[in-house]
């Protein structure tokens, strides 16, 4: 089973502040706390320290237009895998 953690940050730095988060555990989208103080991680680095593996770094090809802000910051996608069943 693959768990997923989408993290949106305000820069590509691994210790940048978080703008958003989506968590998928055991095949279900899990409700992350409304208050960011209660989010399970405050940086990408904290997630890595907790065993998450980065599977996609922010795609810089999408961020090359200074004249326009695209989407919600820089997105990291991380995963944890565990045996099914």
């Amino acid at each position, binding site marked *: 089973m693959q768990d997923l953690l989408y993290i949106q940050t305000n820069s590509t730095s691994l210790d940048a502040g978080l*703008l*958003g988060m*989506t968590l998928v555990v055991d095949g279900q989208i899990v409700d992350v706390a409304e208050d960011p103080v209660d989010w399970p991680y405050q940086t990408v680095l904290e997630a890595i320290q907790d065993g998450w593996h980065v599977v996609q770094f922010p795609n810089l090809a999408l961020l090359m237009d200074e004249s326009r*802000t695209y*989407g*919600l910051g820089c997105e990291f996608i991380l995963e944890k895998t565990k045996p099914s069943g």
Partner: protein
Amino acid sequence: MSQIASMQPIRPANCEPTLTDSQVLEFCRKGYLFFEAVVPQEVNERAFDFIAEHGQNPLRQEDWFVQNVFLNPPVAGAVRSLLGSNFALPVGVSNHLVECPAPKQNWHRDGGSRYGPQVNNLQVFYYPQDTPAEMGPTEIYPGSHHLFALQSWMGHYDRIRDAIRTSAPAGSIFITAYSIWHRRAASTATGTRNLLKYSYWRTVAPKRDWVAESDFDFSTTEYVPNGLPGQQFRDWYDAAAMFFWLCGDDRPLQAILGGKGWPMGYPPPRSGANTFPPEGFQRF
């Protein structure tokens, strides 16, 4: 040449503008304005019952609805401030009805969103019934009307810092920039939630004919005091560009910037080492 048979005539309306410079700028920053419980309760109840019997769209032709909701004084005054005189009344009403409990929606901005400083229409949300958190009110992301995003590429976003839930009593109305990011929150209560949406639009060129503040200083006002999502300096610039577009004259903004060139630089108020542009500065 044949005409489109179903085209509706524009229904212009007018009233006195009520927003001040600061309130117009607040709309430019956040992309919404909130009017709590401004519609009388008997009108809310009548709307609720009317929808159950006739659907929501005929409401646009009902005088009692037009007068109390479309032309609700504080709301219409704000619409007049942002869209100018002879603003056009909505020609359609949609109902984002949901049977609660229901899961949350994906974040999205509505189809047809355009990005830039122009404010040619306003998307409005009206709750004809109490809509606490348990009834799945709309969540909105303040400032996101400046964030370009394709709707189909937003579906994986979930919790967003600084997003707000528009829990509100019956009769509350939100005026929003069309491109603002939003979604229906999850509901846990049982019952029917009605949320009416409709749009006003502009019929005249923009100009600063709202309530001018005598002490509102273009060059020193803080366009975005607390920051908004986006690239450095784009937050204040996007809000300021929208404000001056609404003024119908962006020369004060060009004076702040030192011309039409990029970059937009530090936000006002600038002082000391941050003073820019220097006297006599010119871009080529």
